[in-house]
């Protein structure tokens, strides 16, 4: 599977740009702030219906404009898939496949699997649990459409439950009936999400351990431990027992929306003691595992976006990474770098076809 052609209109710093790519390796070079990452984000947008970096669509529109359009021709199993995203932030968002608009955006997720590796990813380790849930959800929603559907339902009900708790608290009422209705509606999605995340980590960890070992060349055992309140208690019990607490805090304190992944090395949490190098190896191994699992589950090689890895990783890790990726003979890869020649020098050693693009102020030159 690969992206043949991409067209951007008023997307971030691109006014209008059309570009054709190599089905194998594409290098985007240019100084900081020229729009390399924005181009990767546009590709990500076509696959996931949202930006990897900015949560809100209005941040993806070119400054001063009211809408953006991203269009891409993907070739998957010899069939052309033209994806068009037309977005007027806060008003309209239409994503279509071969001219046919989707009724629900969630139906599109997973058609074109994608993995993005960005320097900011160390947030995965350093920041709160939300980042790590996002990582899990990114993988699972591409693999399993039912998971995404249940997650959307869960989040919607949760939002309503929290709003109901606020109203209850505001009027000083203890009538539990409405909150209990929401409890009931949370049971099925939470059980499904817990079970799916649990089994996902069972297949994730063996591959992950292998990658970490390869990348770090160390003897440490890496493992992602799935942490959830649902290991010990049923969701119904958690919600019932914590009604008082939820009432006073005016939000739902227990549930799969508080799940976390504990990243460990030799059974010890990484967050506390890991060196910069160990963290980078860890992130890389996490992402490569995501890549391999998506490939296995979807039956096609995901598009891989590597953002600014040369600045963030040492030469040894980069070469090792490219070795891993290029020894497999398929899959489309996009790499960005600030030095025009560095990336070429490294790639030339691999004897692979590639295209180089120079990005200057929201314009692409061949």
């Amino acid at each position, binding site marked *: 599977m690969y992206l043949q052609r991409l067209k951007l209109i008023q997307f971030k710093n691109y006014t209008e740009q059309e570009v054709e790519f190599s089905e194998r390796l594409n290098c985007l070079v240019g100084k900081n702030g020229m729009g390399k990452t924005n181009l990767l984000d546009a590709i990500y947008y076509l696959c996931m219906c949202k930006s990897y970096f900015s949560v809100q669509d209005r941040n993806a529109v070119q400054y001063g404009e009211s809408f953006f359009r991203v269009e891409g021709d993907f070739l998957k199993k010899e069939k052309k898939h033209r994806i068009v995203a037309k977005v007027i932030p806060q008003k309209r968002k239409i994503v279509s496949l071969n001219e046919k608009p989707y*009724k629900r955006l969630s139906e599109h997720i997973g058609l074109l699997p994608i993995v993005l590796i960005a320097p900011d990813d160390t947030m995965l380790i350093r920041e709160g649990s939300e980042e790590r849930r996002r990582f899990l959800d990114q993988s699972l929603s591409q693999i399993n*459409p039912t998971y995404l*559907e249940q997650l959307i*339902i869960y989040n*919607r*009900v949760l939002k*309503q439950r929290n709003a*109901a708790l606020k*109203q209850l608290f505001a009027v000083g009422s203890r009538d539990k009936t*409405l909150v209990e209705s929401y409890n009931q509606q949370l049971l099925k999605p939470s059980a499904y999400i817990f079970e799916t995340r649990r089994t996902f980590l069972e297949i994730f960890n063996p591959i992950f351990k292998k990658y970490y070992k390869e990348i770090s060349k160390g003897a440490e055992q890496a493992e992602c431990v799935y942490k959830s309140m649902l290991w010990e208690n049923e969701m119904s019990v958690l919600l019932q027992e914590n009604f008082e607490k939820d009432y006073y805090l005016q939000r739902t304190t227990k549930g799969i929306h508080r799940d976390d992944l504990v990243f460990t090395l030799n059974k010890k949490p990484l967050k506390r003691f890991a060196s910069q190098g160990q963290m980078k190896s860890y992130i890389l191994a996490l992402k490569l595992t995501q890549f391999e699992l998506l490939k296995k589950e979807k039956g096609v090689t995901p598009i891989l976006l590597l953002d600014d890895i040369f600045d963030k990783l040492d030469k040894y890790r980069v070469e090792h990474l490219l070795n891993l990726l290029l020894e497999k003979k398929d899959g489309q890869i996009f790499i960005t770098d600030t030095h025009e020649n560095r990336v070429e020098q490294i790639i030339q050693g691999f004897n692979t076809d590639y295209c180089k693009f120079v990005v200057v102020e929201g314009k692409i030159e061949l």
Partner: protein
Amino acid sequence: MEFSSKLLEKTIDVFASLPGIGRKSALRLALHLLKIDTDSVQEFTTAITNMKTHIRSCQRCHNISDNPVCHICEDARRDKSLICVVENIKDVMAIESTAQYKGLYHILGGIISPIEGVGPSDLTIDSLLQRIQEQEVKEIIMAISPTIEGDTTIFYISKKIKNLPIKVSTLARGISFGGELQYADELTLGRSIVTRIPYKSE
């Protein structure tokens, strides 16, 4: 658009404030009213004013009505032991036009959605509970859209009456009549397989 008359412009503004009417349609309507005779226009405005000032909601089911109790609730031929709970008046009209239902209605006036500031007390749920206690009701049918908020509303009402000897049912959800399977959306088709029904030949 520039208009030669402020009066015309005002009329257009008023029409364009209605749902589904843009400025071009508003202009067409206004020009049409200008063309027909004054009596017909008078008829128009009287009808609207009368409707607005005299219409009320039925004391029992909250349907729109000219009298304190609507004609459906007054109809002696209707089955008073059956109440169909709907979100709004348009749903009543839709069910009535099927001519398949001979019970009474209860119009909630919305569905529970705290995000939008609609709680149970903003709907006519208390009046429904009262009706159930005063009237001989055997079954209530929840004819509410199959959305998350719709489900919440059904859960809520059924919890409120769980101690009463009343049957609660919901509309069947699944493949539509005359529809082809290949065009059914996956969610509906999946659900229809899971909640399949025994085949009865008639």
